[in-house]
């Protein structure tokens, strides 16, 4: 009986491509965020507001990920920034190969910031490195404060957590103190930004964070 030792990482195919993406982004000095969250948490609305604030100072590119439709890309396109829509046709997350293909049509040399809006999903996107510098997730107060313990990988992987729809707090039973305490235990390094894409609360701090990480990189 022969024993053949392989010790081969099973996400290698994705990770090798993701590393290539990462190297490409560094070559062009682009800061890349992988934006994740449940369907309806407010990812696209947050992007719209963020772009409107930052586009006068930064060259921004967006990659939109959805199973089907170009609805989100159309919203971003209306703001005058370069956007590419990826349709996964059933896959529940973006992977590095999809990003590599999309970047062929992105003017990378011109960009300061690339934000990838991942497929709405609190599970799978956290597992797949795309080549980004930071994972950022969106949770809205209407989803409940019990989500960190239910989806620990997503919350643990995220450098920034945008707590959206904060203007609806009085109409929900979202326990902010419990949420803060849970995040402190699960991912103490994460920065939580309470915001509202509807009213604009909290965007100053969130946009400042983006500008600081870009500065740090360059």
């Amino acid at each position, binding site marked *: 009986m*022969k*024993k053949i030792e392989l010790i081969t990482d*099973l996400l290698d195919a994705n990770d090798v491509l993701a590393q290539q993406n990462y190297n490409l982004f560094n070559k062009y000095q682009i800061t890349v965020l992988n934006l994740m969250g449940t369907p309806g948490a407010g990812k696209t609305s947050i992007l719209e507001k963020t772009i409107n604030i930052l586009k006068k100072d930064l060259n921004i590119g967006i990659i939109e990920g959805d199973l089907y439709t170009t609805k989100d890309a159309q919203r971003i396109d209306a703001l005058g920034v370069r956007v590419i829509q990826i349709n996964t046709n059933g896959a529940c997350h973006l992977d590095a190969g999809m990003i590599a293909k999309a970047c062929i049509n992105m003017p990378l040399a011109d960009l300061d910031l690339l934000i990838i809006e991942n497929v709405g999903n609190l599970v*799978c996107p956290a597992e797949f490195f795309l080549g980004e510098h930071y994972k950022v997730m969106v949770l809205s107060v209407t989803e409940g404060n019990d989500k960190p313990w239910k989806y620990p990988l997503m919350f643990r992987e995220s450098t920034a957590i945008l707590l959206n729809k904060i203007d609806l707090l009085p109409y929900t039973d979202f326990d902010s103190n419990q949420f803060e305490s849970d995040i402190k235990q699960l991912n103490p390094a994460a920065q939580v930004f309470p915001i509202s894409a509807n009213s604009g609360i909290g965007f100053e701090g969130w946009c400042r964070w983006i500008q600081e990480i870009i500065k740090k990189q360059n």
Partner: protein
Amino acid sequence: MHEFDIMHGVIRLLQQAAQENNIKNIAKVQLVVGKFAGVLPDALQMAFSIYKNTLSSLMGNAVLEITECDIICRCTNCSNTFSVRNSIFVCPCCNSTSNTIISGRELYLHYFEGE
């Protein structure tokens, strides 16, 4: 959640390595799966048994063994290493919540046996 995709990758690796090492029948396959890898051992077993049936001459007698790795963290405050239970990432020595995961995210094909 992507156990079929992952198993597809495993089978391709096995086919290639079996050919390179002149192995005609695989008896055992060992995978290492961390408990924070987001992959379910039962689902991997199910995917394996389905793929096995499509490659009966090479894999018909193969058994899949999965070694699961606990989630282990190193505290960045006091350097203590500790096991994580119920997603509580708090150092039992100093109560610090600042730590790095040193085990638990593994997902690899370790070895296979055959003749």
